[in-house]
Structures are given as structure tokens and as C-alpha cells.
């Protein structure tokens, strides 16, 4: 009799999801699926609203990465007005996104994921969270929290508030960099750099030792990688063009415009998840699997462009790059964690460069115009990957159609494959009927999802207090056994 094991909900991620493990007649793992079980409907209720409100509305999709939606909406707005924001506005938007990547990555690494590898996969699940980390290593926990605070504070200094600021607008931004903001950032940068230095040292030690098995089994498979790159091939988070690269390091497509996303991205639907399955169209579904986010951005770029980050990128590739790509491409999804730390370095160096730029203190930061286009696509690199906003408006500027392609959705195929790979590695023996599956193993399956830092909604269960619900279900849907962890 075939059976299904359900992990519901998946904890320490942003949003609601569950995992099912499908066993065949012999009790061996046949398949694993990551289900997103929430539905929100933003695309529909934006219809009829003025496009100028889209930044304000779509930022509310998420409390962790509102900036990503804000920037994508503002960039789509630029195109509807048919204007180029002034140079200072473009730099200020970049600074906002760097701060956003920094705070979100710090949250993912320190609050959500590090308890697994710093406290141990086998540790007590009730303490395997940021509070357990505070008890075990208060200095590291405090430093991690303060690193996130640094990013959040830069967001507030620029945009007036940490969460759901409406500072980026069609045509530019609302306010320039203030002298007060500049002074605060310069004062706190050294501490932020010291924290990421410590985290990198700690993480590399773990990679050399206890995390080797995870690195090779947590979603290590060939796929395409997609992300923005600058005109010179450098790392990019807000401008530039789309590049696809494969696991051998071959550039599959380059210089793609977000305007044409429908020509190279397809979206498949499966009956068991509310999250669509985007794929690279020329390869079809599901062969067109691609990954986005920190790992993908480091894989697609030729360089980062700042000294420390470039040195970390070289070490990242040297440590984890595959032989087939001559060390150019890292294919393990577990490397998302390392990639996040490298990106924090890139963000801190980027902010350091921008904060020294006097041109950010000008008042010429917003281009104003009437509506000049009826359709536009905007793109930004969210912490979790490339985010597309696509709007159509009528001649009065009222929205008639919205399509949002969210980063987490683009990693959907990869997350499913990751879950299956981990389950196969750690459930290698047939599971007897009625047998319990040990919690640390289920935690590893969940942790496979956490590599991608999925953001499934603005609701967060960052404290890791959500219960774990496992079900053994036969092929007919009959519940055979159940285990609940409160």
C-alpha cells in the first residue's frame, strides 16, 4: 500500500506551506512535494486602482521584503510615465535595495536557518530557534539581530519607515540622503562588517566539517540559474538585464529584457499547490527548471565589483563550484546560505560606496510626467530572486491587468526537487507501516526548503514555534498514522 507523510506546516519560513512524502508499496520514498497552501489574490484586487497606488499596494504583500515590490512597482511606473529617473534617484533606489538584501539575508541566516547548523540537526526542536541561539551564543545572536537592524535602519533613514515605506515612486524617489542618515550609516558600518566577518569564518568552519553531507545532498542538481547582471556582467540588484547560465557555466541567454519575460518564462500549474511553477520556455516544463536568488545571482555574474565581496566570491566558487564547470558554478542549494553571506558583504561595500557619494544629497530626484504608456514590466532583485511586475492600464491610468512573478515561485521546481533529494538521502531504508519517522530527519527535509528562504506571504513564523504535523496517508487518502509536535 502506498503512503504519504505530511509535514504541515513547514516552520521557520515566511508563510504557510506543507511537505508531503509519498511512499510506495514497499515503504520506500517515491516522491516528495512542497505545497503552498495559501491564496491571496493581490493581482485581482489591484484592478481598477490608479497605477500610482501600485507601489503602496504591492509593498503590502510582504512585511519582510516590501522594498522589492516597492522598487519593482516604481520601475514599472517609470515606464508607464516613459521617464528615466534622475541619476541620484537611481542610486538611492540601489542603496535601498542593498539595505533590504542585507536585512533580509541577516534574518534568513541568523534568525531562521543558523539554529539548524549552529545548535545541530539533532538538538531539541523546542530550542532549535533564535531563542535557543540566544541562550547558546548570545554574542552571535545579538550581532545577527543588530546586522538586520542595520539594514532596517538604513531603510528607515531613506524611506521614513522600516516596513511598508512608499518612498520609491514612479519617476524616482521622494527624499534625498540626509546628512543625519549618512552619519549614522558611517558609524555603524564597521560593526556590520565585523558581524559578517565572524559569520563567514564560522560558516566556513562548519562547511569544512559537519555540513559536508548537507552541502552535497541538499538540492545538489544541475539546473539553469537566472538573475540580473550589469552591462559589464557584474553582480546587479536593480538595473541591468536578465541572464540565464547553466550548470556547466555556459551562458544560455544574455541581455534579455524584462519586457519580454513572457517569451522566455512559462508558468505551469499543478493541482496540489497554489504556487505556480515557472520554467525557462525554450527547454519546456519541467526540463526548464531554473533557480533564482542569492545563489543564482552569484552564479550568473562575472564579478561583484568590490574587493572584499570579489574575494569572497572567488572563495565561494573555489570551495563549492562543480568540477564540470571548472569551479565556476555552484549547484548545491545548501550554498544559498553561503551565498547570502557573500551578498551581505557586497551590500555593505555597496552602501559604503554610495554613502560617500555627495550627489545623493541633491533635490533632483523625481521625474514627473503624465501617463505615456499603457503597458509596462518592471524588475528588481528581491532577496529571494528576480521579481517581475507587469501592469496594463487604461488611458486614464487605471489598472486593467496585473501579473506578478515572485522570486519564490521561480524556485518552486527546485524546492520540490530539493525536498525529494533530501528525503531520498535520509529515508534510504523502507519505512515500515506505522513506524515513526525521526524528527531530525523531518527537520532536514524542512531545512531543504529553508535554504531558499521562501517568502510565501507577509506572515512569518520566525520564532519556530509552529507545530509540526505529520500524516501517513494511503493511496486512497485514508489516515494511517499521525504525529503532532506542539
Amino acid at each position, binding site marked *: 500500500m502506498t503512503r504519504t507523510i505530511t509535514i504541515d506546516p513547514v516552520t521557520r519560513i515566511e508563510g504557510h506551506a506543507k511537505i508531503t512524502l509519498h511512499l510506495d508499496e514497499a515503504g520506500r520514498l517515491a516522491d516528495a512535494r512542497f505545497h503552498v497552501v495559501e491564496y491571496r489574490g493581490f493581482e485581482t484586487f489591484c484592478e*481598477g*486602482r*490608479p497605477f*500610482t*497606488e501600485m*507601489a*503602496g*499596494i504591492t*509593498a*503590502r504583500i510582504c512585511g519582510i521584503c516590501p522594498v522589492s515590490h516597492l522598487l519593482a512597482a516604481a520601475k514599472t511606473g517609470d515606464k508607464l510615465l516613459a521617464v528615466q529617473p534622475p541619476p541620484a534617484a537611481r542610486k538611492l533606489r540601489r542603496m535601498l535595495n542593498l539595505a533590504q538584501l542585507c536585512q533580509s539575508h541577516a534574518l534568513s541566516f541568523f534568525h531562521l536557518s543558523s539554529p539548524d547548523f549552529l545548535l545541530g540537526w539533532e538538538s531539541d526542536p523546542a530550542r532549535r530557534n533564535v531563542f535557543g541561539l540566544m541562550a547558546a551564543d548570545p554574542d552571535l545572536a545579538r550581532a545577527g539581530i543588530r546586522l538586520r537592524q542595520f539594514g532596517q535602519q538604513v531603510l528607515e533613514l531613506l524611506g521614513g519607515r522600516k516596513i*511598508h515605506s*512608499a518612498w520609491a*515612486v*514612479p519617476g524616482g524617489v*521622494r527624499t534625498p540622503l540626509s546628512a543625519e542618515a549618512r552619519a549614522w550609516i558611517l558609524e555603524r558600518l564597521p560593526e556590520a562588517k565585523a558581524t559578517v566577518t565572524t559569520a563567514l569564518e564560522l560558516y566556513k568552519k562548519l562547511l569544512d566539517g559537519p555540513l559536508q553531507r548537507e552541502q552535497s545532498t541538499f538540492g545538489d542538481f544541475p539546473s539553469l540559474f537566472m538573475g540580473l547582471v550589469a552591462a559589464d556582467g557584474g553582480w546587479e540588484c536593480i538595473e541591468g538585464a536578465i541572464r540565464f547560465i547553466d550548470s556547466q557555466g555556459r551562458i544560455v541567454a544574455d541581455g534579455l529584457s524584462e519586457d519580454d519575460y513572457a517569451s522566455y518564462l512559462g508558468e505551469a500549474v499543478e493541482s496540489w499547490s497554489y504556487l505556480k511553477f515557472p520554467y525557462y520556455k525554450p527547454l519546456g516544463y519541467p526540463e526548464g527548471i531554473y533557480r533564482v536568488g542569492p545563489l543564482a545571482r552569484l552564479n550568473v555574474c562575472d564579478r561583484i565589483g568590490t574587493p572584499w565581496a570579489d574575494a569572497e566570491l572567488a572563495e565561494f566558487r573555489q570551495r563549492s563550484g562543480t568540477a564540470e564547470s571548472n569551479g565556476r558554478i555552484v549547484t548545491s542549494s545548501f550554498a544559498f546560505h553561503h551565498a547570502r553571506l557573500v551578498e551581505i558583504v557586497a551590500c555593505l561595500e555597496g552602501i559604503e560606496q554610495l554613502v560617500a557619494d555627495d550627489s545623493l544629497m541633491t533635490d533632483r530626484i523625481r521625474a*514627473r510626467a*503624465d501617463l505615456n504608456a499603457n503597458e509596462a514590466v518592471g524588475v528588481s532583485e528581491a532577496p529571494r530572486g528576480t521579481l517581475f511586475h507587469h501592469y496594463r492600464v487604461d488611458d*486614464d*491610468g*487605471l489598472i486593467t491587468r496585473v501579473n506578478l512573478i515572485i522570486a519564490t515561485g521561480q524556485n518552486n521546481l527546485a524546492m520540490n526537487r530539493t525536498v525529494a533529494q533530501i528525503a531520498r538521502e535520509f529515508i534510504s531504508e523502507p519505512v515500515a507501516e506505522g513506524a515513526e519517522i525521526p524528527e531530525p530527519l523531518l527537520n532536514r527535509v524542512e531545512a531543504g526548503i529553508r535554504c531558499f528562504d521562501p517568502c510565501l506571504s507577509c506572515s512569518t513564523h520566525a520564532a519556530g514555534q509552529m507545530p509540526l504535523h505529520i500524516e501517513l496517508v494511503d493511496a486512497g487518502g485514508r489516515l494511517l498514522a499521525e504525529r503532532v509536535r506542539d
Partner: protein
Amino acid sequence: MSVHTLTVDGVEVAVPAGASLLDAVRAAGADLPTLCHLDGLTPVGACRLCLVELEGSGRLQPACATAAAEGMAVLTQTPQLQEWRRMAVELFFAEGNHVCAFCVANGNCELQDVAVAVGMDHSRFPYQYPNRRVDASHPQFAIDHHRCILCTRCVRVCDEIEGAHVWDVANRGAECSIIAGLDQPWGEVAACTSCGKCVDVCPTGAIFRKDDTTAEKEAHRERPQLLRAARDQHQWLNQ
């Protein structure tokens, strides 16, 4: 000039004949929440927030639209009045679609201010979620009927000060709405001079400049009074 003497919550005040009860309340150093009233425009008593009780009569009167009279004893803050005012504000919120989070007037909205003033923390009435229109046909301005509370300030300022009478009120009950011209798209109404006075006086984010985004609306609700003083008394306030 004759003067009327009356009491407001026990405080004795003297106001010139022709003054409203709202003037008397303000002269007594108190204040009342208002939404439809705006100094410089004819009072209409539409929002019912400034209702006061006249001792001995048992009737409630809108202070903005009731003339002060000799010997009146006005009560403005009885528990019942406070309760009714809060209820009236809750009904405004339940009747339309007021989503402050991304509203153009967030932080500069009289409905928001009044909700705070009357201590509203939720609506006890079910939200109606009406399906209303956004008219963005005017090149500079737009009207979002979801946020309209039918205060008719736009109707009055356009008629009494600009002299264009672009706006009026159509239908009744839940169907009641502000219309432009002969219920035309705003952009097609030839009478509109694009002066923007309706934007200035709108208490919420219902009428706004099209390039304003979330929380960017700047209202200038003092302008009708300044314009009226200039026109009627030739007092030019160039500030």
C-alpha cells in the same frame, strides 16, 4: 451689533447675532469634530458629527447649521453624544472602502483624524465593501468614490467660490454619489476650470492629484476662507 449670550457646557459666552452654535462652542474654548463643515463654505449639517444637545429641548442639533440664540444652554460632551459621534464615524468607515495603508491622504485625512478624536478602534458595523468607481478621466485630478463620504465640500466650493458648479449630488440612499456635470466623466465636463479647489477641500483621499502617491496628498483646507475674505472683505492674505 446685537449679541446673544448663552452657555456651552456651563461656560457663558457672548456671540454676535447670526453666529452658529459651532462658533459659540469655539468661543467657549471647546471644539467639536466636523467633516462636512469648512469655514468659508455654507454649512449643510450633512455629517452629523457636531450634534449638540440643547438643555430642555431633548432635540439634537447640528452645531454648524444652527443659529445661536439668547439664553441657550448647549451640551457638547454628554456620554450619549460621544457614543453617537463614534457610531457616526464607524458608519462612515463601514459604508465606503477606506483603506488607509496605501491611500493618497494617509496622514493628512480628516476622517482618520476624527476617528482618532472620537476613540474609534474598530467598526461595530459590518463593512459594506461597495463596488464604486474611480474616475481618472481629468488630466490632472481623479475622484475615487470608494473614499467619498458625501460631505459635499467639493460641490459647495465649486459652486460658491469658483462659480463653476461642476459637482453635484445624484441618487438617494446607498446609491447617493457625487457626480461631475450631467453625470459625465470629469474630464469631459467643459465647466471645470481645473482650479483644484475641490482637491484642496476634500477631507479624505477621494479627490486627489493624479501624480500623488501613497500619503502624498497635501490638502489646503484653509483656502476657501481666505478666498471668501478676499472677495467679500477685500482682505488679501498673501501668506
